[in-house]
């Protein structure tokens, strides 16, 4: 019964916040008194998006594996981080969250695509790189009048025995306080309840001439929305925003009702900083699996929030993983440009849809107008022809 009440409550909240603007506040290691001390243990960026009835909290953590946790609470709830306590349960909210959804960069894979299929299943000589072993730094934070926030995490070193990687790996988070579109292709449509995560692999040295990269993403979804997660794709005709891409993938955490978390992306990567259709290549996405490997979940801020309740048979959370590989056959592998840019949206509530722009509407309206006039003229011609036929029958002309 409690669960049902919770569903009804959060649904009401989601309904009221649809397309409503939110005010953003950014904080680095929230609640930390001695910044130098906190920074040694924590690389936490916190964005608070206040709406009229509720608050959406974005927690971007780069302490271990780069992770974005999105939490919905009542409007007055405040995050509390205990930097001196053990990690387990040291991140709390003053009021219980209604819903939590998270996405975690778990592993980066390099594989030798000898047959140029771009499919990870046909790859050879896999090299697995744990995202927590990259040395992450928050290098840039842009706060645009509390209307949009951009956080950039970068790493230029990877520390693990036997794997020598140079180059820059970066993760960017962009959050908008109102419904908007991303500034670069594929121009994802944002809601205030979503954040755009971008992964960039710039100038990474490769072990093979036919190297391609893939990532393993983890997703977390809390009770009560989701019974399962499913990956679906839908096609759309208007590629104005996506520049020649007509497909969208949606990983939706939903159960009997809509409103859970989602990941949404276009199957396109860009092979140059200028994200233009001519620099594009594709992604391949793979099946979703249950993922209960504790060592990986412990290295995420979810462990700081939920502790050991993440694990075990009594766990009421959905812990999933899936892979995405970058590139398509005949695109000359990662080595062609030594650059890969992939972006996706993480959010809660109804996944955003793009709507027809003014120009499209104007063209369609003119088209319909011309067709209507044409049909009227043709009708007149037809009537005239009918009457002349009748006359010729009557008067024998």
């Amino acid at each position: 019964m409690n669960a049902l009440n919770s569903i009804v409550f959060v649904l009401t909240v989601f309904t009221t916040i649809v397309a409503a603007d939110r005010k953003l506040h950014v904080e680095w290691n929230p609640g930390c008194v001695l910044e130098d001390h906190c920074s040694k243990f924590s690389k936490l960026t916190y964005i608070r998006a206040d709406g009229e009835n509720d608050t959406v909290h974005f927690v971007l953590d780069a302490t271990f594996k780069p992770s974005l946790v999105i939490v919905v609470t009542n409007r007055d709830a405040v995050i509390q981080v205990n930097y001196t306590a053990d990690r387990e349960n040291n991140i709390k909210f003053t009021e219980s969250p209604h819903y939590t959804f998270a996405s975690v960069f778990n592993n980066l894979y390099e594989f030798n695509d000898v047959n140029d299929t771009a499919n990870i299943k046909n790859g050879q000589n896999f090299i697995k790189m744990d995202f927590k072993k990259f040395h992450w730094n928050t290098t840039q934070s842009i706060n645009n009048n509390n209307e949009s926030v951009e956080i950039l995490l970068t790493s230029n070193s990877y520390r693990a025995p036997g794997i020598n990687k140079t180059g820059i790996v970066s993760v960017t988070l962009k959050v908008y306080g109102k419904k908007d579109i991303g500034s670069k292709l594929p121009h994802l449509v944002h809601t205030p309840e979503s954040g755009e995560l971008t992964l960039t692999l710039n100038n990474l040295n490769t072990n093979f001439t036919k190297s391609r990269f893939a990532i393993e993403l983890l997703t977390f979804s809390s009770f009560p929305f989701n019974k399962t997660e499913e990956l679906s794709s839908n096609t759309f005709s208007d590629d104005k925003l996506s520049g020649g891409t007509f497909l969208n993938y949606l990983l939706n955490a939903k159960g009997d009702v809509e409103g859970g978390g989602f990941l949404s992306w276009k199957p396109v990567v860009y092979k140059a900083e200028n994200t233009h259709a001519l620099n594009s290549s594709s992604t391949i996405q793979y099946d979703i699996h249950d993922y209960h490997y504790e060592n990986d979940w412990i290295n995420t801020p979810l462990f700081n929030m939920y502790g050991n309740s993440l694990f075990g048979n009594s766990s009421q959370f959905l812990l999933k993983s899936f892979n995405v590989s970058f590139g398509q056959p005949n695109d000359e592998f990662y080595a062609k440009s030594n650059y890969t840019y992939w972006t996706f949206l993480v959010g809660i509530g109804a996944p955003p849809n793009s709507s027809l722009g003014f120009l499209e509407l104007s063209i369609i309206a003119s088209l319909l107008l011309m067709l209507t006039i044409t049909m009227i003229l043709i009708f007149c011609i037809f009537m005239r022809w009918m009457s002349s036929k009748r006359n010729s029958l009557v008067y024998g002309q």
Partner: protein
Amino acid sequence: MEENHPGSSSIVRDNHEDDCKVTWTHPSHIFQRLIALFLMCLIGFGSYFCFDNPGALQDDFIQDMNLTTSQFVYLYSWYSWPNVVMCFIGGFLIDSVFGIRLGTIIYALLVVLGQIVFAAGAYLNALWIMIIGRLIFGIGGESLAVAQNNYAVLWFKGKELNMVFGFQISFARVGSTVNFIVMEPLYRYVKKQINIPNYQSLSIVLLVASLTCVLSLLSALLLAWQDKRAEKLLHRKTPEATEVVKMSDVRYFPKVFWIVTFIIVFYYTSIFPFVALGKVFFEKKYNFSPDSANLINGIIYIISSICAPGLGLVIDKTGRNLFWVFISILGTLISHMFLAFTFVNPYIAMFTMGLSYSMLASALWPLIAMVIPEHQMGTAYGIAQSVENLGLAVVALLSGIIVDSDGYYMVELFFCLLLSAALLLTAILWTCDSMNKGILNMSIKQRNQLESNKPPCPEKQNLLQNNDITED
């Protein structure tokens, strides 16, 4: 490549056969004429094959030479720009300056040269050189088609002329189709075999394609020799320059002519620029492989090469040109709408578009001949083709810019808009026609009745006595 119509070609005197029996070596023997026909078809093959080389390798051009779509379409617009003028003077130069033999050889040479410069531009990764190549190619290509028509008239007038034109068009379409089928595999083969930068592989493929133009040039040389020999043996007189385009005639052209011209412009600008950009559209929207995308993109030409003669016959038997024009434009509009708004198997839309395109060519162009007197026909067709080329050059540029800035959906909407304008103009034309004598939409029976009832009239008088059909 635009439609070319014999209406603009010069009138050539009939050649008389000897009554006596001729051997197969004699120019008036059917065997000799068949050889001439084959050579005439080959003359156009190279230019039609190479015209759509960029379209067949669109994504390769864009990636290998790091072009935007807006830059890529220069390769088409710079083909069209010179033909805004060449439509008038190409035929005139053949008739009055070079003569048909030398003229054909010069134009065939320009086509070869243009294609080689085009390939050199790819080798040097220099777009501006490629554009110059396409410009030279354009000057040669369109005029070569006029020369081809003139040869056909010279050799076949009063015999099998319509069939010969049919053969030439079908062969030209085969050239376009073969281009779409072979260029991509050829490019992949060269890329695999020769380890050079991709844009240089592209240039090698373009150079190989130029062999078809060389073949056309050889055909032009052989036909020139054959024609010279025929002229000697048949004592054929060199045709006089009978028809010079007179721009002053334009002021006498009725409004109907201009409406037809704009229908031509609006229609063809939704076809040729679409084919130029179609390959990547099919790859991106329908996830086709490059080979399959080329196949479906070239389906318009395949259907045209097969169905055009049959559909032409349908119009010959039924008349009702405006009705068929309306149906053709409507069919093309529906095809574009399917491509713009749906993910239904695109073969359905392209098949419909191919049929409509083939039908329209037979139904629309003769409308000009119905409203313009014979002595002004050359000027009228020249102007129609000139305006068409102007439209193609501008729309090709616009399409590239739209694809770059707003994507394929928007460019498809743009094509739908052009076709809606063509459809509206057709409806207006039909309305005007039906309010008058209905000449443009008569059945063959009605047309024959009109012809038989008509008193003998001076040659210069046209069906509408140079008045707009809107005026009584």
